[in-house]
Structure formats: C-alpha cells, structure tokens
C-alpha cells in the first residue's frame, strides 16, 4: 500500500482560521470512483491512524465512517462514468493535550438517487451518525459532495482501548 502524503502546511492552510485545532499530520490521496475504493480508503486510513498510536476503537470507528462515505461517492457520484474521490485525514491537536481525527471525503460528481433503496443507505447513514462525534455533509451546487467527519476526542498518545471520550 503506497504511503500517504504528509502535507502539514497544506492541511493547515486548508483548515482556515481555527487556531485551537492544529493539524499534526495529514494524509491525503485520490482514488478512482470504483467500488473497491472503499476497501482501499479504509486500508490506507487505518494504517495511517495506527501509526499515530490512537486507540483501536477510535481507529475502527473512523475507518468505518470513511468507508461508508467513500462507498456512497463510488456508488452515486458519477453515475457509472469516471470520476475521482479525494480523501484527506488529519490528526488534530486540541487544548489540554487532547486529539481528534478529521476526515474529508470529496467527490465532484452529481449524486443521483438512481434507485432509492432506503435499505442500505439508511443503515450506512445511521452508522455514520452514531460513530462520528460530528458529521457534516455539504452539497456543492453542481460540483459534488463533501463529507466531513470529526471523531471522538482522545488523550494524546493514548492507546487505551477502554472508552475514548464521547461527544460532549
């Protein structure tokens, strides 16, 4: 698996005026919008998060939400045509020696509810909402969709698998 690109300056620039959340590291990659992209994205994000000594439960949760967001983009963004899915993961340093993970999944297609199947879309959304401390879905008019997830907050350098701090 090719390594993620580490681009802390670039990530900090994109983060905008948010001085309390400083990206420690960023992992960014782009994939073709195919169904196997979900597997590839979660494998890369998991490997990268594990290298930051984050609690396994947190890594599982971020991996899951990332996978769902990439799956949605792969299935629906480009309606069978070619396209790309961008993934960016960051570990953010918070006051008080805390950390959290932010992941952005971006496509530039147009979501077509080709066959409104509330079955798996409903379960996917329910899981994303439950596993992310914050979840934002932005539709960029004519330029695709962006999903941003913020994980639970954990102490820096902690790999304690017992109960990371949940949302406030």
């Amino acid at each position, binding site marked *: 698996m090719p390594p993620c690109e580490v681009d802390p300056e670039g990530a900090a620039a994109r983060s905008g005026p948010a001085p309390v959340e400083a990206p420690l590291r960023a992992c960014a990659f782009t*994939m*073709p919008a*195919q*169904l*196997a*992209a*979900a*597997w*590839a994205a*979660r494998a890369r994000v998991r490997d990268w998060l594990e290298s930051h000594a984050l609690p*396994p*439960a947190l890594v*599982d*949760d971020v*991996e*899951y939400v990332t*996978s*769902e967001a990439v*799956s949605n983009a*792969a*299935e629906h963004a480009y309606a069978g045509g070619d396209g790309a899915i961008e993934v960016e993961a960051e570990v953010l340093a918070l006051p008080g020696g805390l950390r959290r993970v932010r992941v952005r999944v971006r496509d530039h297609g147009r979501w077509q509810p080709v066959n409104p*199947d509330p*079955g*798996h*879309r409903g*379960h*996917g959304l*329910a*899981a994303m909402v*439950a*596993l992310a401390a914050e979840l934002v879905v932005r539709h960029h008019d004519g330029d695709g969709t962006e999903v941003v997830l913020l994980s639970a907050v954990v102490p820096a350098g902690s790999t304690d698998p017992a109960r990371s701090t949940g949302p406030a």
Partner: protein
Amino acid sequence: MSGGRGGFPPPEELMWVRRYLRGGAVIVSVSGEVDVLTAPRLRRELDAAFHDAGVGPVVVDLTDVSFLASRGLATLVDAHRDASAMTPLRVVVDDTRPVIRPLQLTGLDGVLTLFNYVEEALEGEPEATLPE
C-alpha cells in the same frame, strides 16, 4: 494486484465464501470483508443457499469476517426477509468489533437471529451473547 479495475484487487481477493450442506441445513462460511464491492456476491451465495436448503436453517458464519459495511447489513436483512419458518436464517458472529458494532448501532442485533457458534446455530440455541 492483477485482475481488478483501476489497480485495485478484484473482489475475489477481498471476500471468500464457502457454501456446504449439513443435512437439510446450508452453511455459508464467509471470510474477509463484506462491503459495497463484495456484498452482491454474498447475496448470490445466500440466494443459492436458500435454494439448496431442505428443511433446515441457512447458517451464515461471519466469524472469519473482518469488516461488515452497511451494504453487508442490507444483504443480511434481505436474506432475513427471504427466510421462512422452515428455512430460517441464522447468523454466527464472534467479538470482532467491526462486525458487532454495526449490528448493534443499527439495531439489527435485535432483528437477526445471532449465535456465537455454528453448532449452536444448527441447533437453534442458545442465541448469542454480544459484547457491550
């Protein structure tokens, strides 16, 4: 990584399914990752299992599954709908967190009939205890 599109591995390298008969029951033994790419193949295996089953359950063994995406949950729910009193669907899980958590978060642990071992699934009891 040859054979897949876009340089990705083909789905056959990400999920394996073995389907076999035990009396009137059919056991569908799944390994690997069940997601948007691989779940359709699991669906076909489950369809075949319901076709092959006599009077007996279809037992889906997920204990060697490392990831169960929402598309996999939907596949299990669809199979659950196809099941009948004569051919119930029973799902075997262990404590693998990326399998258990989605089942719990979506409430499907209360919809599907879960067991901790294939032998117990074939017997129909005792049902699974899941980690907190």
